[in-house]
């Protein structure tokens, strides 16, 4: 099948889409949506975060439609998002009241409210299990559910933050609560210097790999920050919208799973030192992204020559949709501009040209 851009574009596109279906139909085995949503949940979390749309079912649907490509799935969700009217804004979610499923601190051995390791691959041995699981999916599911159901339920107690303790000790600056309406980068052009709300929103939606690489560059020496994870917590947060007819009331609309990270670094405090905090929050259990975000958030408070310290550099190059859109556009025909380039190049190479001034 020939790729002819100038003519026959329509037929070529139709054939190309049929060929995609051929790839997507590689096996007669079914890939059920529920299985993607519940068994590839970290992938689903990553896609929801980078799309800025919390919907595990639609993320699974998007992933199945595009052979599991993260950027394509993000793309599908973002485009869908554009069709939705924005009817409500939730009230600020109080993550102190999070129903925590994992909470650790690398700063202190013991913390108020306790550490809870929760689910993590950190302490697994990364050995591929070549033998297929002998247990069937149904039995695996039932056994784990039964195991969990047999546990006595723990009461949900709000956990204070590690940083609250440090604030009480006077080691961390305390800021008044900022209740301004956050800048929304999905409805406005980001301008620089950017308000912090725009910075945090942009990073929460950023490509995981981009943010991780930037944070890594900072840790390796292209930056000033080698932080300590003061606290990393994952859990369910309740979302409420204001009740129209009574401003003292709100309506509970559901809960979302998020991961929040607070990183601590030393900072100058007029002749002595203090601690300063970087903050990250992402959808789902995307822990490294939350930590990377906290590192870069902190780094952005140190304007300097390194990439992670340059606000405009960090905030304009990390959006999955934007970076992949512009990279992929290089595949489009560029005959006209290339012709123009050829003309400019050839003109400089003409011998004895009248223009040699």
């Amino acid at each position, binding site marked *: 099948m020939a790729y002819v851009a*100038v003519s026959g574009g*329509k037929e070529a596109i139709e054939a190309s889409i049929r060929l995609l279906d051929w790839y997507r139909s590689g096996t007669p085995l079914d890939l059920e949506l529920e299985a993607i949503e519940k068994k590839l949940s970290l992938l689903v979390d990553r896609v929801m975060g980078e799309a800025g749309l919390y919907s595990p079912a639609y993320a699974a649907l998007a992933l199945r439609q595009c052979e599991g490509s993260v950027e394509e799935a993000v793309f599908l969700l973002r485009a869908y998002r554009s069709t939705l009217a924005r009817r409500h804004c939730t009230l600020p979610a109080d993550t102190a009241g999070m129903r925590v499923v994992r909470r650790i601190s690398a700063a202190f051995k013991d913390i108020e409210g306790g550490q809870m390791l929760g689910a993590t691959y950190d302490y697994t041995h990364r050995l591929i299990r070549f033998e297929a699981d002998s247990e069937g999916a149904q039995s695996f599911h039932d056994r784990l559910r039964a195991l969990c159901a047999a546990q006595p339920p723990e009461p949900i107690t709000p956990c204070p933050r590690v940083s609250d303790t440090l604030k009480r000790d006077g080691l961390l600056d305390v800021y008044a609560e900022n209740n301004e309406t956050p800048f929304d980068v999905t409805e406005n*052009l980001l301008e620089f*210097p950017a308000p912090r709300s725009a910075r945090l929103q942009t990073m929460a939606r950023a490509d995981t790999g981009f943010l991780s690489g930037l944070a890594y560059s900072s840790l390796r020496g292209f930056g000033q920050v080698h932080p300590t994870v003061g606290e990393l917590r994952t859990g369910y947060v309740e979302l409420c919208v204001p009740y129209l007819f009574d401003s003292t009331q709100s309506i509970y609309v559901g809960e979302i799973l998020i991961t929040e990270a607070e990183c601590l670094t030393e900072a100058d405090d007029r002749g002595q030192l203090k601690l300063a905090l970087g903050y990250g929050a992402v959808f789902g259990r995307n822990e490294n992204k939350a930590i990377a975000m906290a590192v870069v958030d902190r780094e952005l408070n140190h304007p300097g020559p390194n990439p992670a310290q340059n606000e405009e550099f960090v905030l304009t190059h990390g959006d999955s949709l934007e970076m*992949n*859109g512009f990279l992929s556009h290089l595949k489009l*025909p560029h005959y*006209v501009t290339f012709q*123009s380039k050829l003309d400019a190049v050839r003109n400089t190479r003409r011998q004895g040209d009248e223009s040699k*001034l």
Partner: protein
Amino acid sequence: MNPNYNYAFLDEGSKREIRRATLKAVAIPGYQVPFGSRELPIGRGWGTGGIQLTLSLIGPEDVLKVIDQGSDDSVNAVNIKKFVSLCTDVPTTVHTREATLVQTRHRIPEAPMSNRQILVLQVPLPEPLRIVEPREEITKRMHAEKDYAPMWLQLYESLIRYGRVTLSSEYPCMVEGRYLLNPSPIPRFDTPKLNGSECLYLFGAGREKKIYAIPPHTKVQPLAFDDVPFRRETFAGKRCRLCGSENTYLDEMFDAATGERQYQCSDTSYCQEMCAK
């Protein structure tokens, strides 16, 4: 037209917001108006700024033409038309004169456009100063202060080094003596068409979230020194192998079988009309 989507895909509030930004752009020729660029089912960098302009403007009485590299049948043009017909029932045409709205990438049609037409250009990088200054914060200030010295210096340096201004397409232009504008990657061949035109030119940059405009009868001058005139690409001694035109922008190509070098009009619709004459 798929009834599951709003007319022209975007919700009415978003379309109105884009039209407001467009009106501001028309009121301040050459000034880049920021807007809340929406995500579309088409890739960022694939013409989403132009498509948002088209979607915000299009109505049942319109006739749409979409070209890419001058061609109506190019993959990207076909794809955009397919998307617009998913969410509107607007007829499309290949004939420049029949269209009320023309969306284009990299070309301005050869046939002159009239005052009942709008040409929407897709813009990858709206900032003409980006080649001399990477930071938006600084370029915004440079525009405010009309500080275009680094750009002149860039032209001067290329003259000294190569004896020529080596800028190729998207040649920077001054609009009404006030704002420096990037005309999107149209070839220099098309740049003079921007000056004192009959039609409205709208520029949309989706990824960079900017809209700007050149209204009809606006003075648009490519940057050039008094003693070194602006030059278009030249195709002297060459002609279109299909219609024989000697005054159009030509694509250079190689015969698939023989490898022989050939030229033909980049504007395929114009070429077909010339062949039919």
